[in-house]
């Protein structure tokens, strides 16, 4: 823990989310069609925060869901089985603009799995991607629509998001060597 660098503190995280929310609002004029879907762990809480900010901008509630991507991963026989989180999508995704929300965009494999998983629930009109941190090193041709902060990293570094919703003392994004 001692060698961890704070990349974003609580204020910076909230500022980044506010900016992302405004960008989402600017990009999507038909606000009634927009729904947020967070990817656990981390993205689910960020999606809930974004929905709250967007509700203030649009003056109506924004549907939020949680999408587990573990069953659609492409590395399941190369690793210890990942933790499966419950998926909760309490609305019909068909015809909607779904904004996927993740904490860190890295290889792009989670995003690919998320898009596959989302297809099992219907056919969204559009899928957009919002991430708090883009750390580079993509393995797949995937790009985020909304980015909180670009952080150039090396492969032996690890980024972790701590949120009060998940029991942390304060919101923080940390960068440390593995």
């Amino acid at each position: 823990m001692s060698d961890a660098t704070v990349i974003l503190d609580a204020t910076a995280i909230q500022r980044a989310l506010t900016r992302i929310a405004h960008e989402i609002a600017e990009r999507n004029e038909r606000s009634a069609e927009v729904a947020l879907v967070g990817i656990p762990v981390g993205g689910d809480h960020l999606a809930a925060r974004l929905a709250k900010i967007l509700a203030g901008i649009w003056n109506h509630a924004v549907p939020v869901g949680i999408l587990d991507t573990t069953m659609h991963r492409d590395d399941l026989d190369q690793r210890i089985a990942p933790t499966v989180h419950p998926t909760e999508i309490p609305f019909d995704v068909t015809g909607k603009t779904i904004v996927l929300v993740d904490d860190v965009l890295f290889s792009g494999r989670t995003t690919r799995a998320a898009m596959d998983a989302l297809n099992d629930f219907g056919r969204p009109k559009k899928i957009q991607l919002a991430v708090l941190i883009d750390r580079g090193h993509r393995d797949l041709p995937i790009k985020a629509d909304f980015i909180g902060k670009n952080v150039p990293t090396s492969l032996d570094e690890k980024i972790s998001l701590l949120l009060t919703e998940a029991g942390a003392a304060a919101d923080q994004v940390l960068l440390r060597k593995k």
Partner: protein
Amino acid sequence: MAWTKKHLLDIESLTAEEIITVLDTARGFKAVGERAIKKVPALRGKTVVNLFVEPSTRTRISFELAAQRLSADIVNFSAEASSFKKGETLKDTALTLQALNADFIVIRHSASGAPHFLSRVLDAHVINAGDGAHAHPTQALLDCFTIRERKGKIAGLNVTILGDILYSRVARSDIWALTKLGANVTLCGPSTLVPKTFEQMGCRVTHDVDEAIRDADIINLLRIQHERQRKTMFPSIGEYTQLFGLNKARLAKTKPDALIMHPGPINRGVEIDSEIADSGRSVILEQVTNGLAVRMAVLFLVNGGKVPAEAVGN
């Protein structure tokens, strides 16, 4: 928290944390069964062999559906229609299946220890679907899942298992799982089928059914397994029903929120009154639904399990 076992052979060798991991994982898979598209690609390209040397319908079908919903290919292999009839040994049959690149062997066998034996001779993941009177781990896991879902917890609950304990692999696996998770387990039935030696497993043994079910939060009924009993263990079915069957008069003296469970197949009018089986107190059909989710979780978890050399066959 993380699951590292390559096989699921029994409950005894699992920690409480590992049991909880299965239950948590199964929650995610239960939701998959409630969607319009009930299939995920987690085991795409993998082959599961259902090696059922002892007949079974519900467990076999449950594993079959579990594998299909994970996108695995599944082959059913039953003793009646196989080379066992021609004298092939279990080991040779299993090696033959492995030579066909089976990734998972789900085995049901009348001999206790058959799955452990296979796990030592095969590279494939071995899942015990019931071996003799020894273990039926997925049944215990689905029982725990059902209790936890309905009651919100397991620790501190009074669970009474009523019936043929001696010949029951379900009872043994349930006792291991429930005691590891902190439940108070009481066993009840005819003294010939519920010997005092079971107290060594950390549970209470009584032969007074009214006392056994009075404070129970869960009443788990077991079928009399005539096929396993080598000699008559009690005078008659009629007498068993009279002394130990769950009827309305007995149920009236239990806690109003006590749940009735049964691993199936049920014998209506023997261990359970027909109306009770169909009542709101009974979660027998939920157990079937949850069994599918638990078996998906088990296949998913062992697939990721790496093999620490010392843990092979364990």
